């Protein structure tokens, strides 16, 4: 009976396609996840009145772990450790640029495309789950820009090296980062930067130029804080990370009068994003640059371990621009999945025929991307309006929109990771051969046999990938509901603890998006290279 049902579901989902595709999530995993999602929903609603204070949640500073604390402390207060990593990262970055401009233009044979898109772009999102925004600390764009503008390897730069202007008020938010994220997605999926080493190198160079100009014109690291799509994505996801830089002893920060973390010292740069460690509540804008750990005269800053998702559940403050960034992330990650389905090209082709588009179908792609971006946002707005209506409009619509967006973030994050696992585990085969010949001198495109061999021998078994993907979707659903429950309690609604009906709008949104994400994972996915 169950076998027949699974066969029926599989026949409904899969379609015969041309070309190499990754297998989609098997139906048995999907049924298990759906059952568990239903159980979690019932359990959450039945315990709807419970709320937990963030103060009760355990947090451990790594400094207090006897066998590890001292070593980590030594590493983070000495600048040379971070500088060494930055130099390595910059060398790899220069290699990518060189390979893209001078090396082979066969995407699967060039380190520019394989390292950038298959390993880094897939892996950097997954890294947040383990090390938060640590990537930003060794980001080559910022490292190179800093060396060029400040003309120092690590010490605080000359004040004259930059105009140190304040960023205009109109763009002192993360709308520019959202715009850049949309442009990057368009370039990646529409223009096809991922399959062109040359275009990849140009994009990387362009971002170095932007970071350098920003550093030379604006105060501190305005590019990291307001403009960088990668940094803001990692920052948004960083709220769910199990690690963050925090004071070891909060009372030391409370009595601190010098605020070296914010102001810097003679040798150490101030916080690049204007954070004061004594009052930091969320990781969104922390770039893990190490300035605070190095400048603190009390050596009171270290990595802190906490529960995954605690920060975003209890202490993150909702903001209008951040809410839009989160929704943008959700829409664009879903759109990513849609464009890698085998049906996508047929849909594009039919749509182009309908509107009279021709050539690379960039107009059709742009219109489809615009529609795909706004569908989840419109659906979210409807659900928020419904919630606004049933709670009696005591709260501003805008405040509910911003607060509830935090419960959407785990859906974007977990789907993003689940999707990237396919790229990372199934497409990074053969990277060693690229590493041996990074410029791809005298190489030929992959033969059909090689493509087939790569496809048939992923570096991780499919069952493990399926299990991880199923777990991630379920985890995102659970965390989304948990955040929603907590955020609902933080709203100023009379009788909020007693009405189950308040759960319906966002439960509907979270469930539908989780199902869409799972449906996308069930589809066979076209190999990128």
């Amino acid at each position: 009976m169950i076998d027949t049902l699974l066969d029926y579901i599989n026949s409904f989902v899969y379609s015969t396609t041309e070309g190499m595709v990754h297998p989609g999530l098997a139906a048995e995993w999907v049924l298990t996840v759906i059952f568990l999602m239903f159980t979690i929903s019932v359990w959450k609603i039945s315990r709807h009145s419970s709320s937990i204070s963030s103060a009760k949640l355990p947090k451990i500073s790594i400094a207090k772990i006897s066998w590890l604390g001292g070593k980590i402390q030594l590493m983070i207060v000495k600048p040379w450790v971070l500088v060494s990593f930055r130099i390595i990262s910059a060398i790899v970055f220069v290699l990518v640029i060189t390979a893209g401009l001078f090396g082979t233009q066969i995407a699967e044979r060039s380190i520019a495309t394989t390292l950038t898109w298959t390993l880094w772009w897939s892996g950097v999102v997954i890294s947040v789950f383990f090390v938060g925004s640590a990537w930003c600390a060794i980001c080559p764009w910022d490292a190179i820009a800093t060396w060029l503008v400040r003309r120092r390897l690590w010490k605080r730069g000359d004040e004259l090296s930059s105009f140190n202007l304040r960023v205009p008020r109109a763009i002192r938010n993360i709308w520019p980062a959202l715009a850049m994220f949309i442009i990057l997605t368009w370039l990646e999926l529409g223009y096809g930067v991922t399959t062109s080493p040359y275009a990849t190198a140009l994009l990387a160079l362009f971002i170095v130029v932007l970071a350098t100009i920003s550093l030379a014109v604006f105060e501190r690291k305005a590019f990291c804080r307001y403009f960088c799509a990668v940094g803001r994505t990692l920052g948004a996801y960083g709220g769910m990370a199990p690690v963050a830089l925090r004071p070891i002893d909060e009372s030391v920060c409370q009595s601190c009068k010098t605020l070296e973390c914010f102001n810097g010292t003679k040798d150490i740069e101030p916080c690049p994003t204007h954070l004061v460690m004594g009052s930091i509540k969320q990781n969104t804008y922390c770039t893990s640059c190490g300035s605070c750990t190095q400048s603190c005269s009390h050596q009171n800053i270290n990595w802190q371990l906490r529960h995954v998702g605690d920060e975003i559940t209890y202490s993150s403050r909702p903001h209008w621009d951040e809410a839009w960034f989160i929704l943008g992330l959700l829409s664009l990650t879903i759109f990513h999945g849609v464009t890698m389905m085998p049906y996508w090209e047929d849909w594009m082709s039919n749509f182009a025929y309908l509107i009279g588009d021709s050539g690379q179908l960039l107009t059709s792609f742009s219109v489809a991307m615009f529609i795909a971006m706004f569908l989840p946002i419109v659906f979210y707005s409807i659900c928020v309006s419904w919630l606004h209506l049933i709670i009696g409009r005591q709260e501003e619509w805008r405040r509910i929109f911003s607060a509830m967006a935090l419960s959407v973030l785990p859906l974007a994050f977990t789907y993003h990771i689940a999707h990237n696992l396919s790229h990372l585990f199934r497409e990074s085969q053969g990277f060693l051969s690229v590493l041996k010949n990074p410029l791809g001198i005298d190489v030929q495109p992959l033969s059909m046999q090689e493509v087939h061999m790569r496809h048939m021998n992923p570096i991780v078994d499919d069952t493990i990938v399926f299990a991880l993907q199923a777990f991630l979707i379920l985890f995102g659903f659970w965390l989304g509901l948990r955040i929603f429950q907590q955020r609902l309690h933080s709203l100023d609604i009379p009788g909020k603890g007693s009405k189950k009906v308040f759960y319906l709008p966002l439960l509907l949104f979270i469930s539908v998006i989780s199902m869409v994400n799972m449906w996308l994972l069930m589809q066979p996915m076209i190999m990128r290279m």
Partner: protein
Amino acid sequence: MVYFKLKQLIVIPFLLVLTFNAIAHHVLGRPSYSLGEDSNTPPSMQVETQLGEYYITYMAFPAFPKPGESGRVNLYASRIDNGAPFDGKVIFKVRDDSMFSSKQERLGIQDVDDGVYRQGFIFKEAGDYIITAEFESGGEPYIIDFPLRIGDPFPIGPLGISIFVIAFVLITVNITQRKRLARVKATQHHSDKASTSNN
């Protein structure tokens, strides 16, 4: 002396940028491995596109031709509605895609051969070219452009632009800030002098 060095710093990258041709990438072709062509495994550059009533597949052999090396462009065109191949005449042209160049010539007019239009070429000079295929169907003109790079691309273009932009910004910021500092010091000196003479 300092002025001369600054002038050098600005002028040299600027000349570098002007001198080198821009590398055009109109359509991103995908290098692929095509069996069954002249030799058994020549790499090719392939672009699939959709234009009006037709699906069009364009291939260049070899994928990255060198100056003096013979190559060929293949074009397949089939109707979107019923898959019927186009069987009229196709005109192939080529134009130099370098900046400030308007050289253009006709490569040839080809008839369909087993559903495929084949146009051979040999380029003597390295550079960026656009191959254009033109045909007419149902009273409508169809024009397809396909970029072709002969020889290795010159990579200094984007590097030169980046270096020039960065150098320009850094030098401008530095000069402006130093002038501002000098002005502040001068003002301070004058006010100090004025207060001393008043005393």
